[in-house]
């Protein structure tokens, strides 16, 4: 098995101001599927092609933003190994009991240097993607809205930036794939635990622990255009796109959920192997790095977080 250790972003838990509006957004407009609810009022959702029970948890709250993001590790031994790595790096960890999130095994919880809460877990109930594992169909016919395929990554803003990137590389064994640098100063770091262009990304900020966006995968540029149509049809607050990123090459569009948490849907980005070179964008080209066609920064895109 080539892929070991941390496998992928497993889920993100977002705080929402109005559950009914949020479910309309994520289920009817984006096409996620509701899989469960719990006695804390949390609602569990998955994208259609994911096997595990949930990849998005919506938590009723009087604040917006990200409660935590969790990564799935391959084995219980990995969970213990990363727990030691994190402690050896000087960061405290706690264990959250199995079942605290419905269908999820025991989680190792910690706060990374940039101020975000992360969790690792090895087990989550698998419910399948609704397609037979024998002679499988290529897609499902019962999907809604944008028909997002999987929860892909988060981009986060935070302080203690250099320490945070060091932590992800050394303690969590992530690989730096792309970066924006201003001389010796790294402004943005895109990191992967797999062969994806990024599983998480960080932007240097003065604020701690902020969410820039939670991103979901689509299959094609055509599906990005369809998402844009739905955004206008349903009066969803639109920010930027459809366009292409220089960073990761992804074809993308950005918009906001009904609590002001930014979402991205994108398609057709690049990939890496462990021996791929790090790609670097200079600060002089930051406009092109972010929006390849317009080559202009968008004020809200750079300055707005939740």
């Amino acid at each position, binding site marked *: 098995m080539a892929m070991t250790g941390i496998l992928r972003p497993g889920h993100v838990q977002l705080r929402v101001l109005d559950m009914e509006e949020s479910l309309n957004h994520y289920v009817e407009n984006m096409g996620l599927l509701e899989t469960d609810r719990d006695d804390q009022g949390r609602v569990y959702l998955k994208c259609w092609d994911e096997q595990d029970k949930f990849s998005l948890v919506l938590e009723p709250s009087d604040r917006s*933003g990200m409660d935590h993001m969790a990564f799935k590790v391959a084995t219980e031994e990995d969970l213990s190994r990363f727990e030691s790595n994190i402690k050896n790096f000087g960061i405290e960890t706690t264990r959250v009991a199995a079942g605290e999130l419905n269908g999820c095994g025991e989680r190792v919880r910690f706060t990374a240097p940039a101020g975000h809460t992360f969790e690792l877990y090895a087990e989550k109930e698998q419910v399948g993607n609704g397609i037979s594992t024998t002679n499988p169909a290529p897609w499902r016919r019962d999907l809604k809205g944008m028909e997002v395929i999987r929860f892909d990554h988060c981009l986060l803003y935070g302080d203690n930036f250099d320490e945070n990137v060091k932590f992800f590389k050394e303690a969590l064994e992530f690989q730096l794939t792309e970066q924006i640098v201003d001389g010796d100063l790294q402004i943005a770091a895109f990191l992967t635990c797999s062969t994806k262009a990024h599983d998480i990304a960080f932007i*240097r900020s003065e604020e701690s622990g902020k969410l820039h966006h939670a991103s979901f995968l689509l299959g094609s540029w055509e599906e990005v255009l369809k998402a844009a149509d739905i955004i206008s049809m349903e009066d969803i607050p639109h920010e930027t796109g459809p366009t292409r990123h220089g960073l990761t090459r992804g074809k993308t569009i950005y918009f906001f959920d009904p609590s002001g948490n930014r979402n991205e849907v994108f398609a057709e980005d690049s990939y890496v192997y462990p021996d791929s070179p790090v790609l670097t964008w200079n600060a002089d080209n930051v406009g092109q790095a972010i929006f390849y066609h317009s080559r202009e920064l968008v004020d809200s895109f750079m300055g707005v977080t939740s």
Partner: protein
Amino acid sequence: MSFQITIEDTGEQYACSETKHVLAGMQQLGKKGIPVGCRSGGCGVCKVRVLEGEYASKKMSRDHVTAEEEAEGVVLACRIFPQSNIRLSVIGKLNKAVNR
């Protein structure tokens, strides 16, 4: 029914329907003055102080507006719907684009 919104800082005036939030009313007429962010009550950049006028409001993130502020008319422009003419001043601002 539409009402007149006045941004005290710039003198900008525009008409806003009672069915649209004050920020959407500004944006759809191409008017400027209040920073535009998430338009869903989560990011806080459109924070304003209502100096005069009545409005209905939706829930806004407590990270950006405390209950005390809300009671004093300090609100997010994207979460208030005019029920009379409104005069307001701008509090929120966008962070600078790149921290370098």
